[in-house]
């Protein structure tokens, strides 16, 4: 119970300290990061025992107060956040320390810690909340913190502003939807809402508005236009956080809503439509990633593509068995993509940092000078391609099964195509990086912690595939889609 509160309060307090006493910012950040990991794991073990947790903030039960709720899904996303958060925080030690040298980055070195800790608190708050309006506040908090973090990079201000405007637009749609829901049911507690929801115009409108707002924040094609510039221009640790966690947060909200309040409303047509957008995102994102001139841009577009996979759940959700398999599949993809993409962005940051540029065509010699980083890139790419034995593979495997079980084999075709295209853009990078080059040593050798943190996150993405039994069991706790049941051979 108390972990739930601590998961939000701890980083908040860390943020205050980091702002008031910049000198102790780094140590505060790292300490908080480790404690967070511990808290998330302990919460996960509590839930693994089989019980979902509820806590009413301020001691007032919903609908009067705000309810916090944690089940397997929550626990897994909290764990993802704390693992990625820890890795990124460690990477940031090296990354922002280096930036101290030149003055215009000086502020970014200071700004990172308080903003990142605040963002972390907001993420945890979002994963934990069961209150539609509180969800709005956390979304805004995440949005503003993310924008501020992007803006730490001097030349990313325009991207940051665009990001802010899009985020606000999304929030407005979402908030209007919340207003309608309250007007209908006199509560914003998701549990109560899902109990009382019945199909009527206002409910549909609320669903449409809130979904649209969240799709905008999740950057589903064609609403992705804002993502690549923001993710590609931000400082490496920030890009990692944005791609791995922030986008996932909006998706998490969608999952919660569609399996909670909106389940009675979910129409097959809407699901198919979203699925088509997802497919388009896979294709478009992959093509763009393949043509992108800069490594970080490749990674950013690959995020656009990978986000597409997550939305293939919606068309499959219709049939019960396939729906549940697909749900586990997309959650798995979300988790492993989070880990892999974080590792990838950190690694890209190391390359950028070492060679002063990240033009894909001039990556020769990276393999010689930054073997660990290149190794991280390779492993992360393997997971993103969905090659065994990675988390990405498990997710894709489940999703493929769901597609075939439900008889909608065309989604399977899209997935496989996406996998091949992912391989294409990944190996385009790796091929260039593999080229040897009798070249001078890189300008700045990245701090070892930067290389190892990237590798560690990439490896975690693979471990998620090898050791998926327990996490999947955890995910089953409180899952409204029921237990994961792949079709058994009839005896």
């Amino acid at each position, binding site marked *: 119970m108390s972990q739930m*509160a601590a998961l939000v309060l701890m980083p*908040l307090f860390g943020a*205050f300290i980091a702002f008031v006493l910049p000198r102790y910012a780094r140590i505060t950040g790292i300490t908080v990061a480790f404690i967070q990991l511990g808290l998330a794991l302990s919460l996960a073990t509590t839930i693994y025992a089989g019980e979902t947790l509820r806590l009413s*903030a*301020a001691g007032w039960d919903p609908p*009067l107060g705000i309810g916090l709720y944690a089940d397997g899904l929550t626990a897994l996303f909290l764990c993802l956040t704390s693992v990625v958060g820890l890795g990124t925080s460690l990477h940031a030690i090296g990354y922002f320390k280096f930036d101290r040298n030149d003055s215009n980055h000086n*502020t970014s070195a200071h700004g990172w810690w308080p903003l990142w800790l605040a963002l972390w608190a907001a993420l945890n708050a979002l994963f934990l909340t069961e209150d539609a309006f509180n969800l709005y506040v*956390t979304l805004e908090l995440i949005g503003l913190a993310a924008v501020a973090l992007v803006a730490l990079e001097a030349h990313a201000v325009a991207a940051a502003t665009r990001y802010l405007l899009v985020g606000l637009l999304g929030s407005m749609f979402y908030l*209007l939807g919340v207003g309608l829901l309250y007007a209908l049911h006199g509560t914003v507690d998701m549990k109560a809402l899902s109990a009382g929801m019945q199909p009527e115009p206002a409910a549909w409108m609320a669903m449409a508005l809130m979904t649209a707002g969240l799709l905008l924040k999740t950057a589903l094609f064609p609403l992705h236009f804002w993502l690549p510039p923001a993710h590609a221009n931000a400082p490496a640790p920030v890009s990692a956080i944005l791609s791995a966690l922030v986008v996932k947060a909006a998706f998490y909200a969608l999952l919660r809503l569609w399996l909670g309040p909106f389940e009675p409303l979910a129409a097959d047509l809407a699901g198919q439509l979203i699925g088509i957008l997802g497919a388009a995102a896979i294709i478009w994102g992959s093509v763009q990633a393949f043509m992108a001139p800069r490594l970080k841009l490749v990674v950013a577009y690959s995020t656009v593509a990978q986000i597409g996979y997550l939305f293939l759940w919606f068309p499959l959700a219709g049939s019960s068995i396939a729906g549940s398999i697909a749900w586990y599949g997309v959650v798995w993809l979300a988790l492993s993509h989070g880990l892999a993409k974080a590792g990838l962005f950190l690694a890209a940051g190391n390359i950028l940092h070492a060679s002063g540029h990240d033009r894909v065509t001039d990556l020769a010699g990276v393999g010689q000078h930054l073997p660990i980083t290149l190794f991280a890139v390779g492993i992360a790419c393997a997971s993103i391609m969905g090659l065994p034995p990675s988390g990405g593979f498990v997710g894709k495997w489940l999703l493929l099964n769901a597609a075939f079980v439900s008889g909608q084999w065309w989604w399977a075709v899209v997935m496989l195509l996406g996998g091949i295209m992912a391989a294409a853009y990944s190996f385009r990078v790796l091929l260039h990086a593999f080229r040897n080059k009798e070249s001078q040593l890189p300008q700045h050798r990245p701090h070892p912690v930067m290389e190892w943190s990237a590798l560690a996150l990439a490896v975690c993405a693979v471990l998620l595939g090898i050791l998926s039994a327990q996490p999947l069991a955890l995910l089953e706790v409180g899952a409204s889609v029921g237990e994961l049941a792949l079709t058994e051979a009839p005896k």
Partner: protein
Amino acid sequence: MTKSDPVRLISVVLTLLAVAVIGLLLAWAVFTLPEQAVGLSSMVSDRMPESGVNAEVTAILLNFRSYDTLLELVVLLVALLGAWYLGKMHLSPEDTKPGLVLEGLVRFLVPVMILVTGYILWLGSHAAGGAFQAGALLAGAGVLMLVVSREKLPLRDSIQLRILLVAGPAVFTLVAGALVLVDKPMLQYPRQYAGSLILLIEAASTLTIGITLTLLFAGGRPHRGD
């Protein structure tokens, strides 16, 4: 505008059409809403005695849904941090050309505004009012002084200033943390202290909000102290 005008025109028209559709759907949805709505009014009024204040809105903001308010104070702080790390505040003296009237007005107004701030803060406990209104007023005073002359408002980047900037959310968080430590759900005030805790939080928040808004008006981090 490098886009050729017909293209632009078409896009505008399409946009308007789309928006119109959304509007109509929305209107339709609104029309179909039930005349009489279920609300939480009764529940709120039932709980008022235990809330520690007499104003319903304040009770909701700082007790029933205090968690929202805590996060919202953090939102404000984050916005400030964004401005803070983006650059130094850019209010050059030539932005401010105080005339005699303005000078005098400010010299008279600012103290009054600060008084009223206090009053509104106190008012919040039993009528419309509270930290945000008070903070806004305080910010107003601050902005006035900024506009008239920077010297009168010695904004310097110092640890004291930073403490003031986080005071509101920090006090809030500390209260929450303390309550968690005595393992209550976070922010569940003990009945007898509820009123005073709320007042404490509101007071801190008022200061924070006032200064934060003033700084945001100035648009950045003040210059180093000493």
